[in-house]
């Protein structure tokens, strides 16, 4: 009933001149003294109330306050639900992609909305002992700079909330704020009226992994709903941050490992231009086992290798490192691709920690217009001539390294001046729903469309080709052009 009346007043305001005349003349049209000024549309005309008994007016006032509280709860429950969903989604998505920065930013935005706080900050301890602060986007630069200068020993609530035994720090009025002198600039310049800092812990760690601070310009008490929301937020945020940090740590190790296992730079070789590309898997937590290698051999020969260890985890990256070096050392020793592959194959089939990989090995000399190559379970390379003719170099395929089956034979092909060989792992062309031949043909057609196929142009085309979301496996590409 009350809400119907409410609606009548609101809607009739402009239409019904007679009814509204009285309202306009009332000097104290604000009906209830403590009515929130931010909600004038909810103010009921005094005339309407004056017609009733005083005790009814009191009851109405109480009812209105209840409605307002309910509305507040409903609005904030809704915001809380949205924030909860966002955080849960974030926690799930962080498995695939989120960085700690992205998750931290989302926590700050989400908390600010749920808690209706314009001054929300997240403090993250860095491995080097410093603290990183993540703010809302619209924070003034000088405030940001002042926060960033904060050291771990500074006496501000947000930093103290990172202490091992920290509990909620609630500064709900000016006196409480004044007890923290380091907050004085915020109280004065940002107009801070109350502030709360909450440690974020995960289920597994007692030491806070971050702290969330939120402030208000007017002193604001925390009611039961506030506390429940803050408790829930801090738990979700703590879990999301911890999971993301763990994943990022794994990714960082994986990437470092992968890059440490690939050649740091390609050698400069007179008469030959070399280009290489490694693209990790789409899922960033994955590590691939693809590799490329360039080895300076005797008699001005250059050895080129592209290979692929089956699987995507840190052990395949480590396996790749072993195979790459064993293969390179045998190629250096023997100089022949087929022989080097057979020895590496035998070795990895017999050592206790067996390995399994496919590889393509090529040897060429800048002064000789030919290329010698052998494969171990690996797709052959593409040859691209100056006239943009693209073909697969046919070779007698040998079995994968680690199969122990041996019998790798080298083949020889012409490599005229200006021509390029494009060696790659299957991740560079393979696509679900396509056969190997179809997907190689697709890439060949793309390379054939390049009018002036130099090494840089070819590399760019391959890079574009790898952008396709259907090609999510990791990929290594090595291009050698005779100049």
């Amino acid at each position: 009933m009350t809400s119907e009346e409410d609606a009548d007043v609101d809607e009739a305001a402009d239409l019904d001149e007679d009814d509204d005349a009285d309202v306009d003349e009332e000097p104290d049209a604000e009906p209830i003294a403590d009515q929130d000024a931010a909600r004038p549309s909810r103010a009921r005309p005094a005339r309407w109330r004056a017609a009733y008994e005083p005790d009814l007016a009191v009851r109405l006032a109480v009812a209105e306050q209840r409605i307002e509280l309910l509305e507040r709860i409903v609005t904030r429950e809704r915001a809380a639900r949205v924030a909860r969903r966002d955080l849960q989604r974030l926690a799930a998505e962080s498995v695939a992609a989120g960085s700690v920065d992205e998750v931290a930013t989302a926590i700050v935005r989400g908390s600010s909305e749920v808690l209706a706080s314009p001054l929300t900050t997240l403090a993250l301890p860095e491995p080097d002992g410093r603290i990183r602060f993540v703010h809302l986007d619209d924070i003034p630069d000088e405030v940001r700079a002042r926060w960033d200068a904060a050291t771990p020993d500074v006496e501000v609530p947000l930093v103290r909330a990172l202490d091992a035994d920290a509990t909620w720090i609630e500064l709900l009025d000016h006196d409480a704020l004044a007890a923290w002198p380091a907050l004085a600039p915020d109280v004065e310049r940002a107009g801070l009226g109350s502030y709360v800092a909450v440690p974020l812990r995960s289920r597994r760690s007692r030491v806070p992994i971050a702290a969330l601070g939120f402030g208000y310009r007017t002193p604001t008490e925390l009611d039961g709903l506030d506390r429940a929301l803050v408790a829930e937020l801090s738990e979700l945020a703590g879990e999301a941050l911890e999971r993301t940090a763990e994943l990022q740590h794994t990714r960082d190790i994986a990437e470092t490992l992968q890059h440490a296992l690939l050649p740091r730079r390609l050698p400069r070789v007179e008469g030959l231009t070399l280009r290489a590309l490694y693209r990790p898997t789409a899922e960033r937590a994955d590590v691939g086992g693809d590799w490329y290698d360039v080895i300076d051999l005797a008699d001005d020969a250059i050895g080129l290798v592209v290979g692929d260890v089956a699987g995507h985890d840190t052990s395949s990256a480590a396996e790749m490192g072993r195979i790459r070096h064993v293969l390179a050392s045998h190629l250096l020793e023997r100089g022949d691709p087929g022989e080097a592959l057979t020895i590496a194959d035998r070795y990895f089939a017999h050592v206790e920690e067996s390995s399994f990989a496919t590889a393509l090995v090529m040897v060429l000399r800048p002064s000789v217009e030919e290329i010698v190559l052998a494969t171990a379970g690996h797709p052959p390379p593409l040859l691209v001539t100056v006239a943009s003719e693209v073909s697969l170099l046919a070779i007698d395929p040998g079995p994968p390294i680690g199969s122990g089956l041996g019998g790798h034979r080298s083949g020889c092909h012409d490599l005229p001046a200006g021509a390029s060989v494009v060696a790659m792992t299957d991740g560079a062309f393979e696509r679900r729903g396509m056969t190997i031949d179809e997907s190689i043909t697709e890439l060949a057609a793309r390379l054939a469309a390049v009018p002036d196929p130099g090494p840089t142009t070819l590399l760019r085309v391959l890079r574009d080709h790898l952008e396709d979301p259907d090609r999510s496996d990791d990929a290594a590409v090595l291009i050698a052009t005779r100049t």
Partner: protein
Amino acid sequence: MTDPNPRLSISSDQTDAARLVLVGEIDAHTAPELAGHLDPLPGDAGDVTLDVAAIEFIDSSGLRLIVEAHHRAVAAERRLVVLRPSAAVVRLLEISGLRDHLAVDPG
């Protein structure tokens, strides 16, 4: 005994325990499940048969399992037979140089 993963289904032949029927895709994500079916080898003696007629996709992870199963079979004086290979399997066996090393039965 059907695998819940819809991308690769692995089932045993009712009359021949050493015969697995594979349907779907074999890659780095589905290979671990298949690995469990091949180590130890299914059945007690005789040929271990992989019916791969309905394999639409296979990469080097699948190759690795096949080669390892092949070696285990040889060590146990048995034989690994790749039965009715689909186009995807045939092509991979060709490119990988394994065609001549494995018992392939076109069915």
